[in-house]
């Protein structure tokens, strides 16, 4: 346990990423409001982004933009940032689509609560 904590101190961004991931997953699974689920998804994705970027970061490294006047000795790894740009676009797209679905569901059921929607659907099917 102590060794685990020590290692987690070194790898603290990963540690926080896991915590964020867990909170996000809990939000998705336990909150019944559709907005909350959506926010939870976003938190989860940003936790993953954090892990990626932390993986590519170097202490004391430079921003990965060439400066020909005074070249830096150490640049950070640019690959994770490039990948996560794509990841952010994906999460924006998912959010937009989910919001559209929320609007649609609100038009049909008049609520944005997943539990109440399920109840109403059951009533509709029975009736």
């Amino acid at each position, binding site marked *: 346990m102590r060794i685990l904590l020590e290692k987690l101190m070194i790898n603290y961004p990963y540690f926080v990423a896991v915590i964020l991931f867990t909170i996000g997953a809990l939000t998705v699974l336990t909150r019944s409001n*559709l907005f909350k689920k959506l926010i939870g998804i976003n938190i*989860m994705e940003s936790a993953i982004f954090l892990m*990626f970027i932390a993986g590519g970061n170097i202490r004391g490294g430079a921003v990965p933009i060439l400066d020909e006047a005074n070249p830096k000795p150490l640049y950070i790894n640019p690959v994770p940032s490039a*990948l996560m740009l*794509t990841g952010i676009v994906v999460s924006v797209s*998912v959010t937009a689509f989910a919001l559209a*679905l929320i609007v649609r569901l609100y038009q049909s059921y008049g609520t944005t609560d997943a539990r109440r929607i399920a109840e109403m*659907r059951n009533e509709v099917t029975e009736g």
Partner: protein
Amino acid sequence: MTATITANLPVFVVIAPLFVAFVLPTFARRMRLVESLVVAIEAIGLVGAGYLASIVLMQKGIPIIYSLGGWSAPWGIELEVGSLGAFFLLVVAAVSLPVALFARGNLTEEVGGKERVTRFYVLYLLLNGALAGMAVTNDLFNIFVLVEVATLSCCGLVSARNHPRAAEAAFTYLILATLGSALVLGGIGFLYIITGHLNMGFASQELGRIWQDYPHVVWMAASFMLVGFGVKSALFPLHVWLPDAHSTAPSPASAILSGLAVKGYLICLLKVLYIVFGHTLMQEFAMHRILVLLGMIAIIAGSLFALAQDELKRRLAFSTVAQVGYIILGLGLVNMKGLTGTLFYLASHAVIKSSLFLAAGAIIAATGKHRISELAGIGRKMPVTMAVFTVGSLGLVGIPLFSGFIGKWYLLLGSLDAGHILAAAVIIIGSVLCAAYLFPIIRVAYFEPVPEENWQDPGMPQKIALILLAVGVVILGVAPGPFLELASRAAIELLVIK
């Protein structure tokens, strides 16, 4: 010109449907043109996939490598059309053509006006391109992006049906699928952080060198991948979104979702497990046992759930859950016969399940009845549709001379080679349960009094599509030659990688 096209075919089969998809929204008003364009591009895709498959077959195991942008493997993204890629490309093209043909002029009831139908087609083509991309890509992050395109277009296809329940199903699907893709991305992140490579081949080499240093990370990456793709492909305890989504979607969408989209994620899982981790690492971490166990549970549970359903499309949707179990089980039998069986079963289930869903869609469109108990005597009124449904059912149960049998045969051989007697028993029990939930439909359709209503078979393009799929089921069962050849080659290639 021809040489250029041939040389660039691996990328053309992916981007051709996408290009058509981009221009399609601008002439939404001309429905005929849109429909013909979609069918034409699917046909061209089939020709291209067939050509690639024939090249791969002729080259005997040497894959076609295509470096995008001219950057070779560790730096750029690489497409690889090996036996596996060609096999899945062929499956995608062969199933999506009849489904597109079936959709012709049949969507207005379920989807809406011309513009909505056009957008439906655009989403359909995007899904198609993403699946083709999954078949040929050899890059981990590219898989994630393709999976996202596929997920979003799948959800779009589900929500295209103008019905509140469709929106609800799409929302659940979207949330859970995004959760799954977050997990997949996390798995990719673990792999990237410890190997430094995104190309599957290089990542695999690096992993083989360093995995002893990071045993937990490797295990965690594998389980992230398994759970992530498992959510997307409705592996049993994670299947909760599938029945709603697949039963409320418009019929061609259900066919393509159950038939192909789920298979696309499974192919991705297969690539990650067998190419990146490799079979030695899988066995080292006992992943194959977990896969077999999950597959067995999925087969039994999915079939039992399917038995309990009275709604036709829901029963078919739960049957997909059970059939995914077979494929997962086959992935766990780390031997040549088991993998061949899994791949062949994947193809045969793609064809069968899309034919079943299309037939169900035709029945529902003609009669307006969703429940199995209300379909008495439909076989007399809609002979072609019901005949196709019967062929599909026989294939799914695994009767000899239909495609499911050969897949199951190889799965059985593989499971006995791997020493899983219980798995073999579960495969058989699954078939019996499958008969138990599919044959009542046929019995009700043929052997119960014929109703008064004037129900009819669908129009000509729909009929052709259904018959094409049924012929596919029979051909795969009687003369699976090149398909089986490709599948077994792919299995060999996957097993000798490390």
